[in-house]
């Protein structure tokens, strides 16, 4: 379905930012109260003292402990399970198997393919098969090994090509597969073609292509998954879990347990790192809830480190064949992309991943012709899912490497080639109609070039020493709802009672990224109060309205706007009260330093508390609700919702490194990381997000890989799965580029995910600058680098 490329200017009909203040407020250019200040996280002091409560820190009276028995086969029919010996062990209170429930669930309603425990077959090594609740963890651990499972092994699907083939129904991992590929193990296929791709490659002055391969990687949060379920005496289920998305767990529990949502309370405990790895509704959450239903006692499960690896949902192992066409002037003409991603055992976020692997290549450059063939396959491996930079990271490595190759071919500086192709602010992408509003990518790249002294280094450093660049863009909150309903994407309740405390109720999940702090800042800014007056309650679903949670980099933008909306409503009530007390018009009042000051007569002022008590009279506590819903976006072809966002972040990174050509060891020296976050509401957090993204990206670039033998993960521990430690991590200069987004809260957009993708190609391109070899496999381990050097030598001697 070809569409004419018409990337023109767009009028922006959805200006939420009515100046900096709402209709009741002051002029737009008032200096900020708390926005833009480097403030410690609201919960930082609980974290540094050990007072913060994570799920495994919880203990309830009468609490039992659970362990899960996991499959030792990658693909096997379960003939029978004998639990009698386990049940007979003293201290065992309940044993459950797949017979407990065959209700299916999954994060996406379009692909619910998980059950709490395997029902008829196990489909990966680690698939939960049975579970025990016992008086102690030791007894539970002993009991699961008394459970006898009779497996009948089935052919294992461990190579993506095998999953594309027609197989008998009993060899399909799931009964529902992609409609266009019946009888296979293809989970999702996406084919898109826009513009004249053939023509683009025909008229190109320069064509570059490559075959790329990426190992799977995993989130590896320091906090293990842990969950505590309490089916209480009131016949309600309380589930304590470190969830990024408590709402989807809430929905899944309701479905699997056949219990109305109002009889379930999901309580998010402190989240010790998520990165996408705690955003699916999980089997272990269902299992523990069922064990509590059976025993009517609190049941807690804490995974060991190996189980965290097995639970998975990390970045998909990826194989891609990509080609790009450029004109003689360096203008990008087209992209042809063919990508297979290995989804492992379950669907998880995979439908979205399949789209993102293609459509998120329509930036940060203007792409006039685009073809994408994407396949996500099921395999008998650990399930893949959403991980920081979801779906954009691996394809970005491919395209950023190809752009670099094109620059070499065309004899251009790679930064210069990029500068010639960037999307402009306030434009639509030609085909998917991604609405680009604020865009600081040009400023980001120029700033990184300046600080790194790029022009004096690129192509000029001695052999073994190099510098490279990578650019990216990312959604700032998915506008696509996972559940189609009329709920706003974010709702925030705000209560101001007689004590003057401002309580913000939201289910936006603080996972360490500092979202509670951002919400407090947005509210404090509008009300002109100190940050310590604002308390954020974002843990218990009984106490807070629905928010879609912490994924797709949506919280600052969406929950931030909802918090601001709620605060503006409270502000209007307070301004009315000040008007009543002073006889001045309500709209004349500025809210500064806990005072309401009349703009035309600044000597007339009312303290925040006086205004509050006046506002309370005759009505009680102020309680208001604010919300956010993204504007209508995009276009109308099937799948066109994927990648839509009310705003996009942009980034440009430069990395300097050394490569030892004898050992293949890469030593990063410094990273200049410029990220356009719209406005840094809390620069301390924005820098922390950028630095953390660089660190995580460097892990994928150089050392992190999930290594298998057959279906068995070989390195399910933090010693063999190599995350950069202090001594492996270079100096990182985080640079916040503030493009001031027209619709973000106070101009803000995301900073948590988009900043990961560019570091990996920056490393690859720096390796090329250092030793002249292109790396098509990630991570770029010493072995792979040595092989690339050898291959190049062989080619030169031919």
């Amino acid at each position: 379905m070809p569409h004419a490329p018409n990337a023109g200017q767009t009028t922006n009909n959805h200006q939420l930012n009515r100046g900096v203040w709402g209709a009741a407020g002051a002029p737009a250019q008032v200096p900020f109260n708390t926005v833009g200040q480097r403030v410690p996280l609201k919960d930082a002091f609980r974290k540094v003292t050990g007072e913060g409560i994570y799920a495994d820190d919880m203990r309830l009276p009468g609490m039992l402990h659970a362990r899960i028995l996991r499959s030792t086969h990658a693909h096997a029919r379960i003939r029978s399970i004998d639990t009698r010996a386990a049940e007979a062990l003293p201290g065992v209170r309940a044993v459950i198997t797949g017979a407990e429930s065959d209700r299916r669930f999954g994060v996406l309603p379009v692909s619910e393919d998980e059950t709490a425990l395997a029902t008829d077959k196990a489909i990966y090594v680690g698939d939960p098969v049975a579970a025990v609740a016992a008086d102690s963890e030791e007894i539970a651990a002993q009991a699961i090994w008394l459970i006898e499972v009779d497996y009948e092994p089935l052919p294992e699907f461990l190579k993506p090509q095998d999953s594309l083939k027609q197989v008998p129904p009993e060899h399909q991992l799931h009964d529902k597969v992609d409609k266009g590929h019946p009888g296979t193990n293809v989970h999702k296929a996406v084919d898109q073609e826009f513009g004249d791709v053939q023509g683009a490659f025909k008229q190109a002055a320069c064509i570059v292509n490559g075959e790329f391969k990426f190992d799977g990687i995993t989130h590896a949060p320091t906090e293990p998954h842990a969950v505590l379920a309490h089916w209480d005496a009131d016949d309600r289920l309380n589930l304590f879990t470190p969830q990024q998305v408590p709402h989807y767990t809430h929905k899944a529990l309701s479905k699997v347990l056949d219990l109305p949502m109002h009889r379930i309370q999901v309580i998010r405990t402190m989240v010790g790192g998520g990165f996408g790895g705690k955003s699916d509704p999980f089997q272990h959450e269902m299992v523990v809830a069922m064990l509590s239903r059976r025993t009517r006692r609190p049941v807690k499960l804490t995974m060991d480190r190996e189980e965290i690896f097995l639970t998975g949902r990390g970045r998909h192992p990826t194989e891609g064949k990509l080609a790009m066409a450029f004109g003689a002037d360096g203008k990008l003409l087209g992209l042809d992309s063919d990508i297979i991603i290995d989804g492992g055992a379950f669907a998880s976020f995979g439908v979205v991943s399949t789209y993102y692997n293609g459509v998120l290549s329509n930036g940060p450059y203007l792409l006039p012709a685009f073809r994408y063939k994407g396949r996500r396959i099921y395999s008998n491996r650990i399930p893949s899912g959403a991980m920081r930079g979801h779906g954009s990271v691996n394809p970005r490595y491919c395209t950023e490497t190809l752009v670099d190759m094109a620059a070499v071919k065309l004899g251009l500086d790679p930064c210069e080639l990029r500068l010639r192709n960037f999307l402009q602010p306030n434009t639509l992408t030609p085909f998917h109609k991604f609405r680009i509003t604020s865009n600081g990518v040009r400023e980001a790249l120029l700033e990184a070039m300046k600080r790194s002294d790029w022009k004096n280094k690129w192509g000029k450093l001695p052999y073994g020493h190099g510098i490279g660049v990578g650019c990216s863009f990312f959604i700032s909150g998915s506008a696509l709802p996972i559940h189609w309903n009329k709920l706003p994407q974010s709702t925030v309740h705000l209560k101001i009672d007689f004590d003057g405390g401002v309580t913000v109720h939201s289910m936006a999940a603080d996972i360490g990224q500092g979202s509670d702090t951002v919400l407090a800042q947005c509210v404090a800014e509008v009300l002109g109060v100190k940050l310590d007056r604002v308390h954020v309650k974002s843990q218990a679903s009984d106490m807070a309205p629905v928010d879609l949670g912490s994924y797709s980099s949506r919280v600052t933008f969406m929950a931030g706007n909802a918090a601001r909306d709620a605060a503006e409503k409270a502000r209007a009530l307070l301004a009315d009260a000040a008007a009543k007390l002073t006889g001045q018009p309500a709209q004349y009042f500025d809210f500064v330093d806990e005072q309401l000051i009349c703009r035309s007569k600044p000597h007339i002022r009312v303290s925040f508390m006086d205004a509050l008590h006046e506002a309370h009279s005759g009505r009680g506590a102020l309680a208001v609700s604010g919300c956010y819903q993204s504007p209508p976006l995009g276009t109308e072809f099937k799948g066109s919702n994927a990648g839509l966002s009310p705003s996009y972040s942009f980034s440009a990174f430069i990395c300097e490194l050394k490569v030892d050509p004898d050992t293949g060891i890469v030593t990063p020296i410094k990273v200049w990381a410029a990220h356009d976050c719209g406005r840094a509401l809390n620069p301390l957090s924005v820098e922390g997000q950028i630095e953390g993204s660089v660190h995580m990206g460097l892990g994928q670039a150089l050392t992190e890989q999930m290594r298998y033998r057959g279906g068995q993960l070989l390195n399910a521990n933090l010693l063999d799965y190599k995350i950069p430690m202090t001594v492996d991590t270079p100096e990182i200069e985080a640079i916040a580029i503030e493009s001031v987004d027209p619709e973000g809260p106070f101009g803000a957009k995301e900073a948590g995910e988009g900043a990961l993708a560019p570091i990996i190609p920056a490393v690859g391109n720096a390796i090329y600058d250092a030793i002249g070899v292109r790396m098509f496999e990630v991570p770029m381990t010493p072995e792979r680098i040595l092989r690339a050097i050898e291959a190049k030598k062989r080619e030169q001697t031919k």
Partner: protein
Amino acid sequence: MAKKILRCTVNGRQIELAVAPNQTLVQVLRDELNLTGTKVGCDMGTCGCCTVHINGKAKLSCLTLALECQGAQITTIEGLNQYELHPLQKAFAEKGGSQCGFCTPGFIMKSAALLAENPAPSREEIAAGLSGNLCRCTGYVKIYDAVEQAAQEMQRAEAPAPAPART
């Protein structure tokens, strides 16, 4: 396994407890004494989250059997702040050295031991000293900032008088 009596001091408090020979120190701290500030990230000595002080030295409490600590002085993150925040705790909060916070107690305990040995470490010395502790959030930059700030503050301040204990 028959339990034995463990006598030691935890955060200044005298402890007398029946402990199984295979119980690790972190299990006793968290499960018996309810000192849940010490975290378990891997339970195999690879992440540093469970770092505590045993007789003033930073040790991994997941690799230490509780009964090895007979007569020892043990300090956990909860014992570092007696009445007021330790400069490291203040600095980790203020400088953004803690994001998700799960590795933070371990980092702070390790940093405290580091500063006891080397009150004015360079950035390289801090990195080397903390190389056994894993942080998945920060990229370590703001952790270095925090340790530097705390080192400066501790050097400026007179050594504080030891405060009464709490556990």
